[in-house]
Each structure stands twice: as structure tokens, then as C-alpha cells.
């Protein structure tokens, strides 16, 4: 049994703990900080992550995807400074890259690359790189190389690269016949705005609502700002 002295010490500790906890929760400065600062340190190196994941490669990819969600939430919901915004996009790119290193076949990685990274000015080329590598890994998938080709054409204006990627898509098993015509129209620059918008809308369908703002913006540009 604890002595009276010990009981007093325990009660004092409990009360001080509660007071500190309440004080911490109501601290205005902390709250403001939380709203405006990027509380992210960025991904640890791939080697460290591989060491932690061990044989659980799939979970390694998924933990990076969860970090992508978290970074994207910060970008969307917090009033980040310009510097922090840039840092956040860099982190997001690295998380996607590392998710791909863990699991090169995982479609969520490519959907997020396509939905988020592909519309950031300094990351368009990097997004196409990730998708092109994904197209190589997902050898059964015609959609991935075609999407990569479309982005190379639409965002990078690199039709040579777009041609190679779209050609890869067309030759894949299960590619719909209309793909040939669509690819030709994009690359001959005879595609209309509505072709592009239709394709973007099709891509949008496989993304959850919270992750379509950049595709929506691009559609908006095409519909109201010209091709």
C-alpha cells in the first residue's frame, strides 16, 4: 500500500498532467502554427524505408501513399507559405517515387501521379517519367502508357515522347480500336478541345472526388481559356 506522502505525489502529478494537457490544447499559438506551418519532415531515404519494411513491400508502398494523402491534405487545407508549398510538392513527388520503388505495379501510385503531380509546373516531366516507368512495369495495361503519352502531349508538348508512349499503348492487348484514332488526332494536332476534355473526364472517373481539382482546373482552362 502506498503511504500518504506517495499518494499526495501521485495526485499532484495527475493534476499537473491534466493542467498541462488542457493548457496545450487551448494554446492559441500552437493552433495558429498548426494551421500555417508544414509539419512534415519529408520521406526518409529509400534504403531506410526498405530496411523498415523488410519483406512487406506492398505495405512499404502503401505507407508512402498514405504520406501522399497527408501531404496533399496539407497543401489543400493549410495556408502554407510559398516555400512550404514548394517543399510539400517535392515531398509528394518523392513519396510517389518511393511508392513506385516498393511496388512498381500499384495503380494507386499512378492515379495520384496523374491526378496531382502531372499538373504542377515543375513536376510535369517527372510525372510522365513515373507513368512511363509504370507503363513498362504494368505490361498488361494499355491505359497507363496512353495516359503518359497524353500528358507528354498535353502538358510537356513533347509529341515525340507522346508518340512512343501512345504507340506502346496501342500495341497492348485489349487496347480499344478507337485508341488509334484518338492518338493520331492528338499527335496530328487535329484533336478538338472536346476530345481532350473527354479524355480528361474519363481519367477523372477513377479518382476520388477530393483528388480531381487539378484535372478540373485543366478542363476549365480548355473550356474557357482555349486549347
Amino acid at each position, binding site marked *: 500500500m502506498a503511504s500518504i506522502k506517495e499518494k499526495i505525489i501521485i495526485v499532484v502529478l495527475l493534476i499537473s498532467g491534466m493542467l498541462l494537457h488542457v493548457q496545450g490544447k487551448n494554446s492559441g499559438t500552437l493552433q495558429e502554427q498548426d494551421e500555417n506551418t508544414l509539419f512534415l519532415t519529408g520521406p526518409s531515404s529509400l534504403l531506410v524505408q526498405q530496411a*523498415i519494411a*523488410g*519483406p*512487406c513491400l*506492398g*505495405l512499404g508502398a502503401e505507407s508512402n501513399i498514405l504520406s501522399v494523402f497527408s501531404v496533399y491534405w496539407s497543401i489543400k487545407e493549410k495556408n502554407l507559405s510559398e516555400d512550404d508549398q514548394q517543399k510539400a510538392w517535392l515531398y509528394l513527388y518523392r513519396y510517389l517515387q518511393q511508392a513506385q520503388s516498393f511496388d512498381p505495379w500499384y*495503380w494507386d501510385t499512378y492515379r495520384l501521379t496523374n491526378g496531382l503531380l502531372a499538373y504542377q509546373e515543375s513536376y510535369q516531366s517527372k510525372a510522365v517519367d513515373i507513368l512511363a516507368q509504370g507503363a513498362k512495369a504494368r505490361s498488361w495495361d494499355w491505359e497507363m502508357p496512353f495516359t503518359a503519352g497524353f500528358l507528354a502531349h498535353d502538358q510537356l508538348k513533347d509529341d515525340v515522347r507522346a508518340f512512343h508512349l501512345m504507340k506502346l499503348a496501342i500495341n497492348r492487348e485489349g487496347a480499344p480500336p478507337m485508341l488509334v484514332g484518338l492518338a493520331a488526332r492528338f499527335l496530328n494536332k487535329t484533336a478538338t478541345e472536346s476530345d481532350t476534355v473527354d479524355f480528361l473526364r474519363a481519367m477523372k472517373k*477513377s479518382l476520388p472526388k477530393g483528388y480531381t481539382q487539378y484535372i478540373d482546373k485543366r478542363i476549365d482552362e480548355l473550356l474557357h481559356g482555349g486549347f
Partner: protein
Amino acid sequence: MKNILTIAAFTVRELLGFRVTRTLFAITALLPLLAWAFSQLFMLEIAKVQLDVMVGGAYLLGVVFLLSTVVTLLGKDIGEQVCYFFLPPPIERYSYVLGRFLGSVVVLTLLYTLLLVGVELLIWISLQYDTSIHRHGINWIAGIMIGWTAWYQTISLMGAVFLICAWATGVAEMLVFSSSAAFIYWVFPPILAGMKGRSDADPLVSESLKQSLDGLSWFFPDMTGGSIVLAFEHGISISNIVIMQHALGHLGYTALMLGLAIIIFSKRSL
């Protein structure tokens, strides 16, 4: 042989009586629920995420089983001299080691069989209710592969744990060294593979470093089971030769560890 089987059967009864073993069985039974809940955080390949959680669960359960159950058993046997009951003549020490090992393998197999039931249940639900996007490449073989590869890798580690326990004295020492081995087996093979990948790509890296990395990797079992499972989860076929090589590699490693364990245990003072 009869003595080995007798000790193995007794070990199974003994291990199944451990509260920690029963807890592990309960966790294994609940793992599909955890996998389902976790997968709801993701967007497309939901079924693959569920299987990934089961893969992680399989490896972690294997390690926890070894450290909490097998090490405790051997620690009590050797540290608290329970083995004195098993080892008077006519029982040979190798019969004791092999019997204990075989019994532990049987309990691990039961644990993984339960896990496999959960995996196949998740796969069946996915095939019934998910769209083809959410379950691309998923089939019942992926489930079998999860159990198969995790089983082999855990058996290899079990061989190493037996080697450690054959040499160490007392539960504390066995636990520290076995935990270290589990940690090293988990962490080092991917690092070695990563370093080797870099050294292969870099012509400036000396030949001796490449050879050292190759040599070092011989001390570890083949921990590429995760890659095999991942490929199966995406419907990518892996040649039977690769799978058999993986299995034989692990069996060889386990036999080596167990052989060393028998040699050391036969010579040690009890």
C-alpha cells in the same frame, strides 16, 4: 524417429497450451478485419492492400511466435532445465532438437493455415463484390503464395533461433540474441540488395566490395519472398523454377542452421 515424433507431438500440445500462442491465434483470426479496415483508406487496388496487410501480418506473427513462444519454450528447457526430463538415456540430443523443431513447425503451420483461411476469405469477398479495377490480378493462388513464402522465411528464422538457443544460456540471453537475429534478417537483406544494386550500377565501386556484399548475403536466408508475393498479388506469373529455388534455398538454410544447432547442443553442458 519415433522419439522425434513423440517429442514433436508433445511440443505441439505444450505450445498450444501457452496463453501467448492462443492470443496469436486470436489475432490471426481477427487480421482480415484489420486488413479490410486499413484497405478502406485507399482508392483503387483495395484487394491488393488487404493482401498486403495479411502479408505484413504473416511475417510479424511469425517473428512474434518465434520470440514469444519458441524462445520461451527453449529458454525454460535449457535455462530452467526442463530438458533434464527429455534427455536421460536412451534419448539422443539430436532427437530432442529435431522433435522440438518439428513441433514448433507444426504449430506455426497451424497458425499460417488459419491466416490462409482469412486470406482466402478476403480474396473470395473481393472476387464477389469488387470491380475488376479494385481486384486486378487477385486470385486464390496469391493467397497460397502469402502463406507459402512467409512460412518458408519464418522456418529459416526458426532454424537460426534454434541455433542461438542451442548455444545461449537462459531466456534473457536467448531472447536478446534471437531478437537481434530477427531484426537483422528483417533489415539487412533489403539493404544488402540495395547496396548491391548500386554497386552493380556503379563501375567505380571496387570488385572487392561487390564480392564482400555477395559474401555477406550468404549469411542470410533468401528474403525475396515479399517480391514473389507482390508479383502474384498483381497477377504476374513467376516461373515454378524461381518458386522452387526459393523453397529449396530456405530448406537448405534451415537444415544448415539446424545441423549446427544439433552439433552445438550435443556438445554443450546442460
